[in-house]
């Protein structure tokens, strides 16, 4: 096991689109265990995506237990993940290991259903909500070269949405 080094913005490699994983072999398992160790060693310690360590493959790891205790799925290794469904929208403040010292407000779906393969290539499906859903969406963005900086919204967004709604009646 090894802690891999994290790319930080502005590094153009963070903006590449990652390729699907095709070989579920020993090399993948070793990489996933290194990526997991790197995640736990990080400042947030709850999520990581392979492109953050200069490995442009569609691999995401999330483990919200440090933050949510047992009220979550625990360690999720999501390989070639796809969002099947989402609902609700919520504004929350996010930070990222690849964007040190900055946090900003981002809108994410409140509940999601995600389908992925595990490290052995078996199909898995998870329903997530709240912080866990936010983490999965944040990490999956890395697979398409997006950072939370690409999704920043104003502090005022939640206030204005209500106001515009009232005006449009």
């Amino acid at each position: 096991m090894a802690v891999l080094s994290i790319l930080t913005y502005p590094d153009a490699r963070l903006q590449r689109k990652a390729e699907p994983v095709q070989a579920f072999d020993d090399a993948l398992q070793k990489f996933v265990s290194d990526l997991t160790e790197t995640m736990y060693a990080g400042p947030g310690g709850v999520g990581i995506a392979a492109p953050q360590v200069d490995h442009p493959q569609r691999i995401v790891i999330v483990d919200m237990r440090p933050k949510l205790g047992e009220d979550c799925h625990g360690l999720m290794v999501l390989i070639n993940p796809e969002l099947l469904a989402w609902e609700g929208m919520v504004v929350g403040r996010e930070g990222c290991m690849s964007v040190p010292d900055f946090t900003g407000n981002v809108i994410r779906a409140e509940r999601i259903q995600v389908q992925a393969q595990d490290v052995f290539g078996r199909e898995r499906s998870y329903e997530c909500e709240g912080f866990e859903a936010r983490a999965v969406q944040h990490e999956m963005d890395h697979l398409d070269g997006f950072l939370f900086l690409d999704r920043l919204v104003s502090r005022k967004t939640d206030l204005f949405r209500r106001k515009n709604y009232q005006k449009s009646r």
Partner: protein
Amino acid sequence: MSQALLTVIGEDRPGIVAAVTQALFTADCSIGDASMMRLGGYFTIMQVIDYSRDLGSVEMALDPAIKRLNLRVHLDPISSVAVAADLPNTRVTVYGADHPGIVAGVTGALAAIGFNVIDLESESSGSAERPLYVMVIQGYAPDGIESVRQAVLPLREKEGVEVGVHPLEAAVF
């Protein structure tokens, strides 16, 4: 590099930000934290600038924009105070029928528990007959969110406003 706090006020119209920031750029200033927004019919800018020459040359660079757009400008040299490290951990939202004393009542209760206001935005809206006041405060509560609830929730009755207290947590992924 020296720092100054630049304040700009003018009747709102397109081009104020562009004119001010272009002038600062030509005067070799760089812009740090900034708040630029319309308040009433006025556009307001408050921003920290780093300047390499003297303040007089910054003023001279701004002068054409000031005259053209009829702006009022104020420049305060500031010593480089270390950036405060406390991040907001609580959001307090207040809304209700507008009347004098809402802000004083809420912020007085917050000050009493050592709450540091980091960001306060408010708007008067609604119709003239039924004015509505909306305020969103973000700040740091040293004793946690429960102390904020106890401090401000009694104001629902006292001021006749809706008060919400929400945790603000930055999740680092």
